């Protein structure tokens, strides 16, 4: 299944707030998307002129859902690019290239999938759970952010400030699961610190894990070699060799 060649123009079909995030639905007929894949997005109008006279490049955004000719994204305003995407209104046009990248490999039948998500990193896992099931443990900064846990079926929640669910890191919740569960496989996406914590824990417990990474990207289709991450077999491009990597290959 290959990606349509070139940049397409599509309209914003739906927009809603979930906690501190914006969920954007963009028209993309018959998009065949795997959990963990992403699109490169840019607004057609007003892409630029934000902080530092940016954005200039499109932004990589994970797919939250793909159904009825609509692809959904979860966005957090962290800078000029996501700011512009977050303020997009119904009917406004965006450039999109995608779906891109290697998504998650579905879990083997004999292992329970544990979905570990942090903050705006949850979309690939929400899509994973909808497609293949699995137990979600998700961490957020605060209760307002944690509203986005509603994107999962009965998730276990952790918040840094304890304003919702367990006070502490999502990896605390993972620990208990790792203690009493052998036949599990971990699928994680979130901030670098969280992913490193997950990586060391699954290594210690010899549990298989797939991690969805982020990296600064220019193109998203392997053209610029800018998004590399170090693996046991050298630098790999997150956009084409990832964003999902087997935890064991990451150094």
């Amino acid at each position: 299944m290959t990606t349509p060649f070139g940049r397409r123009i599509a309209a914003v079909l739906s927009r809603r707030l979930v906690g501190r995030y914006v969920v954007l639905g963009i028209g993309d007929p018959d998009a065949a998307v795997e959990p963990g894949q992403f699109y490169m997005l840019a607004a057609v109008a007003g892409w630029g002129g934000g902080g530092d006279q940016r954005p200039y490049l499109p932004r990589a955004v994970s797919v939250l859902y793909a159904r009825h000719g609509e692809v959904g994204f979860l966005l957090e305003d962290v800078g000029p690019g996501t700011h512009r995407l977050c303020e997009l209104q119904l009917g406004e046009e965006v450039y999109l290239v995608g779906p891109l990248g290697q998504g998650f490999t579905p879990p083997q039948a004999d292992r329970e999938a544990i979905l570990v998500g942090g903050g705006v990193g949850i979309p690939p896992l929400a899509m994973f759970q909808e497609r293949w099931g699995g137990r979600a443990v998700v961490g957020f900064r605060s209760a307002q952010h944690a509203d986005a846990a509603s994107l999962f079926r009965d998730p276990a929640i952790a918040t840094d400030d304890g304003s919702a669910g367990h006070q502490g890191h999502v990896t605390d919740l993972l620990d208990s699961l790792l203690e009493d569960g052998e036949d599990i496989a971990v699928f994680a996406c979130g901030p670098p610190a969280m992913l490193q914590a997950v990586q060391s824990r699954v290594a210690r417990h010899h549990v298989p894990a797939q991690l969805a990474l982020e990296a600064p990207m220019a193109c998203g289709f392997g053209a610029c070699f800018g998004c590399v991450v170090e693996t046991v077999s050298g630098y790999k491009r997150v956009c084409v060799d990832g964003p999902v990597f087997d935890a064991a290959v990451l150094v």
Partner: protein
Amino acid sequence: MIEFCGIELEHQVINASGCFDVLAARQVFGEALVERFPFAAYVSKTVTLAPRAGNPPPRLWESAGGMLNSIGLPNPGIDAYLEHHLGEYSKLAVPLITNVMGSSEGEFAALVERVDERAEVAAIELNVSCPNVATGLDIGADPRGLADLLRVVRPLTRKPLIVKLTPNTVDVAACAAAAETGGADAVSLINTLRAMALAPRGGGRPWLGGRTGGLSGPAIRAVALAQVASVAARVAIPVVGMGGVSSGADAAELLEVGARLVAVGSESFRDPAAGSRITAELTAHFAESAA
């Protein structure tokens, strides 16, 4: 049909080296990439004698109307390039230009000799924006250095030699003239401008793994226009103009100041088919101005 150093090209828009990886793009976009290939020729990413891993990440930074990169020329080395990559590239219906870089005249010579053996290669581009091991300055920044380099490599091949000039110099036209005198068949410019970015809240720590990087995109287009114009006014050999081209109008301006071909780099990151779009816009542009 456009003639360039004896090579027949479908149109005047090619890719800038290092800004389009055909192997990856074909995996992603499939046969459509080959059937609707956006460029009139394919310029491969810079290849060196030995394999290079490239610079540690982060390698990218976005700046006002442009971007910085410190990719660090990762490549499999000339042997693997010739053995594995070239065969794949030659499946494209367009002429191939191999871009090579050495850190000494000897390395350049070895690279040119190896590439010269391969019939699939239509032309060789010399990336001279590389620090001279002795002086630390770009070989291409000094007309004398360029003359010396061409004296060594020119006799080694009958394929067209394109010298990709560095913009980080005093008098780029003098460098172009030195390349022409040395027997270059064409020159290409501009390469990226030396630039730097700091890590957010990093107290002065460089953001890029390579410490400094190269600035590209619309931010440098006016600099490219000035350098291409001064070079085209100085030399008789064809000029490949590039730097910040994102539309047919931008491409037309480089042609109007004397470029024979236009290369598209960063814009392909924003639009994988930018080459086709710009070619179409260029045709429309000249149709208009003719009417």
